[in-house]
């Protein structure tokens, strides 16, 4: 028995961290947030070359066949860099298609995901909760309705949509009856879109015994990956706060010597460090089909939302007035953590879901 990252997992993490530290500067983040898509294209291509889209694609379909533990560890690294490109679309599409598609469709799509030729936008938000009555209806095999907060839409060739019954559908972005609107959010480090479907033809994934299971598994994976992203972003903010406190002098000494400042940093570390084990454990439970897995995904998402919010706010305060400036750029992390808190359900929503899964409801 052992509950630690293996040497291979650490190496994988270091490889991606090395790529990101060479290729994602604060300037790049700023450009991406300003709407310059060339940055996310360049980083996305680099991550594809490193094999990230193939991570969760089963080996027999040309992928790496790794698990959510590896995915979460890498997502943590992406969050730490507030990387404007990632592999959420590929990871979630791999889970959904491997879980629900026919053999023929798997053979067609999974190798294309692995190579980066097929890039998936993920329209799953309504599976966790619908805002503005959004949702997708199916009539005569065609999709009608709206999907909000679709992830990874900017570079997408395909869309994976969960309809209101939880059945998954695949279509290409240039299909008739598909309209995309880019949503402007606080978080410039990711693209968010809204898709409108008007009688759009799509291929339903009918290979699952119980419709909705693959969508729910995608959702559990999404919760864990978002939690991991927050973990990385929050750890970065804590490290930045500790560094800044060591450099900034007031009253003739570094502010890191003042207990008021030290205790803020200690509280961040004390709350954040156990989150790392929680994310690992939730990912491990997902990979091993633990019956508690879906509960742990909700707990990890909700707990990282709360802890991330605390760290984002406290680390900004340690930076004093500088933390509030655009110049320092700390706000990109603050906003990414803020966006993660709401995506696929805020903490109240995910805790209610955890309670429901345990039968603690009236």
């Amino acid at each position: 028995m052992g509950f630690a990252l293996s040497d291979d997992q650490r190496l994988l993490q270091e490889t991606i961290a090395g790529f990101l530290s060479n290729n994602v500067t604060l300037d790049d983040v700023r450009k991406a947030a300003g709407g310059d898509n060339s940055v996310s294209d360049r980083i996305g291509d680099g991550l594809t070359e490193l094999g990230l889209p193939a991570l969760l694609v089963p080996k027999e379909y040309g992928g790496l066949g790794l698990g959510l533990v590896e995915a979460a560890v890498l997502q943590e690294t992406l969050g730490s860099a507030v990387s404007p490109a990632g592999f959420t679309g590929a990871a979630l599409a791999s889970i959904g298609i491997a879980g629900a598609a026919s053999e023929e469709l798997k053979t067609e799509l999974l190798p294309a995901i692995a190579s980066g030729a097929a890039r998936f936008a993920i329209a799953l938000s309504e599976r966790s909760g619908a805002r503005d009555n959004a949702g997708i209806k199916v009539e005569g095999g065609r999709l009608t309705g709206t999907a909000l907060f679709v992830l990874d839409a900017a570079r997408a060739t395909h869309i994976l949509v969960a309809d209101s019954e939880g059945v998954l559908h695949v279509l290409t972005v240039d299909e008739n009856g598909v309209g995309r609107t880019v949503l402007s959010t606080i978080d410039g480090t990711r693209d968010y879109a809204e898709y409108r479907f008007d009688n759009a033809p799509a291929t339903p994934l009918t290979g699952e015994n119980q419709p909705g299971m693959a969508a729910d598994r995608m959702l559990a994976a999404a919760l864990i990956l978002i939690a991991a992203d927050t973990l990385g972003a929050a750890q970065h903010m804590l490290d930045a706060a500790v560094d800044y406190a060591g450099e900034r002098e007031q009253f003739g000494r570094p502010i890191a010597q003042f207990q008021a400042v030290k205790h803020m940093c200690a509280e961040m570390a004390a709350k954040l460090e156990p989150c790392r084990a929680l994310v690992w454990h939730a990912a491990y439970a997902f990979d091993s089909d633990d019956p508690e897995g879906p509960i742990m995904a909700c707990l990890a998402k909700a707990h990282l939302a709360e802890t991330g919010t605390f760290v984002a706010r406290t680390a900004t305060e340690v930076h004093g007035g500088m933390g509030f400036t655009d110049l320092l750029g700390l706000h990109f992390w603050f906003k990414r953590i803020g966006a993660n808190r709401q995506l696929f359900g805020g903490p109240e929503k995910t805790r209610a879901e955890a309670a429901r899964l345990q039968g603690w409801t009236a």
Partner: protein
Amino acid sequence: MDLSLGPEYEAFRDATTEFLLSSKEKWSGSGLPMRDPLRLAWQKLLIDQGYAARTIPARYGGYGAEPDILKSRLISEAFAQTGAPPPFANQGVSMLVPTLLEKGSEEQKQAWVGKTLRGETIWCQGYSEPGAGSDLASLRTSAALDGDEYVINGQKIWTSTAAQADMIFCLVRTDPDAPKHHGISYMIFAMDTPGIEVRPLIDMTGSPNFNEVFFTDVRVPLDCVVGEPGQGWAVANATLKHERGMLGDPNAAKTRLLAIVELMKSETLDGERIIDNPVFRDRLVKLQAEVYAMQANGMRVMTASLKGDSAGMAGLVIKLQGCELNHQLAGLAIDVMGELGLLYGETPRIRDRGSWQWRYMYDLGLIIGGGTAQIQKNIIAERGLGMPREPKPQVTA
């Protein structure tokens, strides 16, 4: 990452559980006084079977197994799961014995380790003083050499089990001229030595969980010193390390959480079960996430120990986070009971003999004791994050 136990450990776990369940008629636990023959017999049986004092060498009265943290963990889980009375975990067993094994003379080990493990000798700890709490090294209880004896004068506080103890392990100042960390010695002596007075200290729970101990011209032999005279600070730090490991056990938090779920299912407000109230449920799940985080963190710390690695930050946060979490769990239980949570002592309608109320108060003591939360934050900041110490104030003439 692999959380499966494998056949050897599964067999060990099953054998432990089976032994505990099959010896149910010998169970004798916390309801009985410390020296009750039934309790001592149960403790002896546990040592003989290797479920207590497991890794302590047999020549000193232990079971003599090789250290195996996973087996130790499985044993403690088996006690929790079966409800069997756990082995003694008093200050003698948890703190004095490891210290003697590390720093004591052969005579001291022979004299005290076995008796302490078997519960025949009860110990108390004389560290804190009214003027030396977080700044423990400023302690002033003095031990002056007089021929072949030390003469001790001073006062200790927060001394649990002092009234029952046969012996005390105690920090005293043997060299008033040395720098404060260097003039201290670690001594062990009998509590019935003339000149020792114990006064109970009633705490907010209403019970004398602690005492004050006064020393007036207490004469003790020279060989009561553990390690060398003047080395007491280093000897004590070996002990404090063991104490911090004792507090904030994540399995205890999990047990509490499950008890609160049951409480929320049985308590009602306006005829509605508390667990059906979404506001209370949200608080429950919020704490559940923290319990799961601390449990996973505990697995991570254990894995590091198994490999002989330092657990780093994951280890440093356990006392602070674990004690805080236990306190918050007790706080939720009281809110679940509402007005019924006010009840305390012998009274109608009291739930679970007032144990949640007691824990809510006692846990606040644990947040303060064994290194306050603020001292823990200094440790996390300095040792974990590498932040600088606060500079010593300039002394002006």
